[in-house]
């Protein structure tokens, strides 16, 4: 009887594992949100390369990158940041548990990022100077969360 219980438990755990597709806690959520961060970085990279003078300014490419960035602010991310999915639960995440405190004001920082992305969207097609000027606020908005709630690398 006891053996059967163990076997059933093991089977159930294996099943749960395969349903989740991942063994480490919150692995899918962490992967998904990191993917969104990287997608943002990719698009900001297009704008940044122009701001630095590494690639020539291209109004259409700048606009596309800024539009993409704004799109990422419209995704519902409530599933991606479950409480407890921080670095101490899974080292794949660099999120500090502070992120989930009221003090961190993630909603406010999220809104600031959305505003900075919109400002970039408005500026991107209108010339290189506008892109350069909007980069500072965009970086500051990214830093909003990274400053308070990211584990140093």
């Amino acid at each position: 009887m006891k053996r059967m219980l163990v076997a059933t438990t093991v089977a159930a755990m294996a099943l749960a594992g395969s349903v989740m597709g991942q063994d480490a806690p919150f692995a899918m959520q962490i992967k998904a949100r990191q993917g969104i961060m990287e997608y943002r970085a990719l698009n900001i990279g297009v704008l940044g390369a122009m701001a630095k003078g590494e690639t020539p300014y291209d109004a259409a490419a700048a606009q596309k990158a800024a539009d993409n960035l704004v799109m990422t602010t419209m995704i519902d991310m409530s599933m991606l940041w479950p409480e407890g999915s921080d670095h101490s639960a899974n080292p794949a995440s660099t999120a500090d548990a502070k992120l989930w405190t009221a003090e961190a004001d993630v909603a406010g920082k999220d809104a600031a990022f959305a505003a900075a992305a919109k400002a970039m969207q408005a500026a991107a097609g209108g010339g290189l100077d506008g892109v350069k000027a909007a980069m500072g606020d965009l970086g500051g908005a990214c830093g909003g969360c990274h400053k308070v709630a990211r584990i140093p690398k």
Partner: protein
Amino acid sequence: MRRLVTFFATVAAVGMAAFWFVTRPDTLPRDALAGLVGDEARGERIFWAGGCASCHMAPGSEGARVLELAGGQKFPSPFGTFIAPNISPDPVHGIGGWSAHDLANAMTRGVSPAGQHYFPVFPYTSFARARFQDIVDLYAFLLTLPAVETPSLPHDVGFPFDIRRAIGVWKRLFFNKNWVVSGDLSPTETRGRYLSEALAHCGECHTPRNILGAMERDRWLAGGPIPGGKGNFPNITPAKLDWSEADIVEYLTSGFTPDYDSAGGHMALVVDNMAHLPPEDRTAIAAYLKKVPPAE
């Protein structure tokens, strides 16, 4: 026997007197700032370059609140935990009762208005290279900031590191005001050196320290562990930092790394400060970093 006692008493007295003499706080001449007039606007540039707010603001301040220099942030070290004091213009708890001369003594000599040595957690070993005109301008700007009535907290430093007079010995051993990077520098690189070595005090975090907490000048900006924290201060000499000057300027402006991650931790605060400077200052720092001797 009595002669022996007298002998040892004399030796002890001479020893004490020598210690007292050798470790006495070395202050500026009275007329060091004679004829200098402070300018608030120029002082604001010095304020951001020096990063005063990042350490002296109340913990976790953001936006305009960073100008309220109430103190209270903690800085763990192998010697104990230091707590940044209130440097707002409050006459009781801050520096409202200070003269520009007091500020210059604090920043360039590491001596308080009462004549006590400061712990070198306050980066006077860097600020000592600052021009007096810049300090007088900074003083004018600091007095325009809001006064905050938050008492400064005592440092949590144990024996024997709490003996302030011993810092006099430390200063004699390690207080070196000479520029670290020398040789032929362009005007831009020279400006970058002034900003980096005198005001922004990059070396205070990015240079490894010896067992007594002094920066190892021959490993300037080569990085090291974060005391009491996780991770490392990165090596930012050309041996490890392979970013272009444009990459460094962008990082100091928006906080974006070359792969468009953003600055985190205390460095994000530094970027906020640097973003207040005119673009040519950030260009100067980037040019200077390229002239730092590579160190592994």
